[in-house]
């Protein structure tokens, strides 16, 4: 037997048994190890840790006494100062004393506060089936009537106004169903025309209906809306309107039909090129010139239109990014299976494109919600408007900046952080590729 042969025989190998899977080795654990590895791994790191700790301590030692030593019971800043008697402390009393003003504004009738509060609570019921796939599906009809119900609760007046408004949508939908078989455009414009005709006719019968069945709440005009309620109204309405409009604009921008494409491009580019605040001034002042004198086209509605246009242009661009990210094969596979354009969009393209767009859409939504405070510039008394106007201007609370703006910031933070957390949860839910 030669040497090489023996070596080869040694090298040859056949496994006769499978090694059973074993758990990975348990790493050295414990908080001490974590600290050592993450905070004190080197001289530089240790130094940074110490400096950071000092900075945190410095901030906390300055703010904590101020926050927790605050005065909750006082009728004016002067009284606060007397109670504190030179010690550090916030004057939280202003929030307590002006609580309803901060939430509802000055002029909303006090005995009707329950109405917007109820609308706010019901908002969560209405949103649940839209936001959470696991929520009961039979809440969806409630979601559909919620906008009309909320309008009735907040603005009051005759119940027949929102009922007729809702009925107009139903009429439009029925006409759409009838005509869509002929062509989509036919159904779409037919539905709009039918709804408009229905609404103008219903204006005539509403007083009669109200006389027959007087279901009414005390009517509150738009100029009496204020406080954080106004921010919430503008935020929810504008986000929920700008999402579908933004999607439609994004699809229109991709359209093969040049007219539709150019209308969408011009709209998007124009709106994105203009600061929101100018649009709000336009809503406030300029629109009034185009409207008949004494017209009832109310300011909130005008502001809603402007903010919605603004946000939908941004959402359109976000959605366009999502659409562009989809491989062409998805469109082709949908087409090859015989799906028509609306089906392909609704079932294949948009679910994927919107999923990609969630972070961008949420970004726009959060930005929009914070931008609702800009209406304080056009003499609307939203949360910031209330603080800057009636509250800080009052003799009692002149000078309580930190507490009031801190409170406003906290309210906005809670809402925006909530939206952001929700979107991250949703992204995880929709993660099918790597599930």
């Amino acid at each position: 037997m030669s040497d090489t042969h023996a070596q080869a025989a040694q090298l040859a190998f056949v496994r006769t048994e499978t090694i059973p899977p074993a758990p990975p080795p348990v790493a050295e654990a414990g908080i001490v190890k974590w600290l050592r590895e993450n905070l004190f791994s080197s001289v530089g790191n240790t130094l940074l840790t110490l400096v950071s700790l000092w900075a945190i301590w410095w901030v906390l030692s300055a703010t904590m006494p101020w926050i927790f030593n605050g005065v909750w019971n006082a009728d004016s800043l002067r009284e606060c100062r007397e109670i504190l008697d030179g010690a550090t402390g916030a004057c939280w009393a202003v929030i307590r004393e002006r609580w309803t003003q901060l939430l509802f504004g000055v002029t909303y009738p006090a005995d009707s506060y329950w109405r917007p509060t109820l609308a706010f609570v019901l908002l969560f019921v209405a949103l649940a089936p839209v936001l959470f796939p696991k929520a009961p599906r039979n809440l969806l009809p409630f979601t559909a009537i919620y906008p009309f119900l909320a309008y009735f609760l907040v603005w009051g007046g005759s119940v027949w106004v929102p009922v007729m408004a809702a009925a107009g949508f139903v009429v439009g939908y029925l006409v759409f169903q009838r005509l869509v078989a002929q062509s989509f455009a036919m159904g779409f414009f037919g539905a709009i025309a039918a709804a408009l005709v229905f609404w103008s006719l219903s204006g005539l019968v509403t007083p009669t209906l109200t006389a027959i069945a007087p279901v009414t709440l005390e009517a509150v005009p738009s100029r009496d809306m204020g406080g954080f309620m106004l921010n919430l109204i503008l935020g929810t309405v504008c986000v929920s309107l700008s999402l579908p409009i933004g999607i439609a604009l994004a699809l229109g921008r991709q359209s093969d039909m040049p007219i539709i494409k150019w209308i969408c491009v011009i709209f998007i580019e124009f709106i994105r090129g203009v600061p929101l605040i100018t649009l709000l001034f336009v809503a406030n002042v300029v629109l009034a010139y185009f409207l008949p004198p004494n017209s009832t086209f109310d300011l909130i509605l005008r502001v809603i239109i402007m903010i919605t246009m603004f946000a939908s242009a941004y959402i359109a661009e976000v959605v366009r990014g999502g659409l562009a990210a989809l491989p062409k094969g998805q469109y082709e596979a949908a087409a090859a299976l015989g799906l028509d354009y609306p089906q392909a969009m609704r079932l294949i393209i948009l679910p994927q494109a919107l999923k990609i767009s969630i972070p961008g859409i949420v970004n726009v939504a959060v930005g929009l919600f914070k931008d609702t405070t800009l209406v304080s510039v056009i003499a609307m008394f939203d949360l910031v408007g209330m603080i800057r106007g009636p509250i800080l201007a009052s003799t009692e609370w002149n000078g309580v900046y930190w507490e009031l703006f801190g409170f406003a910031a906290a309210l906005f933070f809670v809402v925006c952080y909530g939206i952001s957390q929700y979107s991250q949860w949703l992204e995880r839910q929709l993660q099918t590729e790597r599930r």
Partner: protein
Amino acid sequence: MTEIPQPHPENLTPIDRSHMQVSDEEAIEIVGMNKWFGQFHVLRDIDLTVYRGERIVICGPSGSGKSTLIRCINALEEHQKGKIVVDGTELSSNLRNIDTIRSEVGMVFQHFNLFPHLTILENCTLAPIWVRKTPKKEAEETAMHFLTKVKIPEQAHKYPGQLSGGQQQRVAIARSLCMRPKIMLFDEPTSALDPEMIKEVLDTMIELAEEGMTMLVVTHEMGFARQVANRVIFMDQGQIVEQNEPEAFFGNPQNERTKLFLSQILGH
């Protein structure tokens, strides 16, 4: 003459030819069809008649217009001149015609193009439910039937991203079959797959051929062509250069370009 190496079908499953009959009924008729991409003349005077039950393999160098040709058949691409009749319906710009034809013609893509946000089962039931208006339950039964046929019923509730390439391509085939198409188009169904997965997809296609499906397959799997096809078409520069029965096509190619192509693709 250069020696053309021959494809080796031995390592493929033996096939049952009892149902593989070509009828004299026309499934697809293409007459004088031309297509341009802008100024670029991709397809030139294509004439091709496909009879029911035919299995046609189309081969040719990359860029010769094979994909474009079969994509014209279900109107994923629009042709500018000539006539295409599919299953008795002429392809025109009438959208309704196009949707009808698309639901009769199944298509399998190189990159599968499954819908990643839907489960395998939902991928298969979507078109029957929305296009054919099949009740959901029935559509699911059909889908399970075809998933069983392509041998992955146990994956029905997974998402495409969890499957291997070969499995995804078999799902794509099942998804097309759920529409009960009369004609199946395949655009390089195995060229994005790892070697060990090619066979499982080819086996599925062979099974389909055995049942008498009319198939147009763009592929470079010459073993498959020799074994399954009744006609092999060679395309180059947007033209059909040569077509023949596989025996004659591989054994005695006429055109110089065909010979060159075959020696390149078969000789190693």
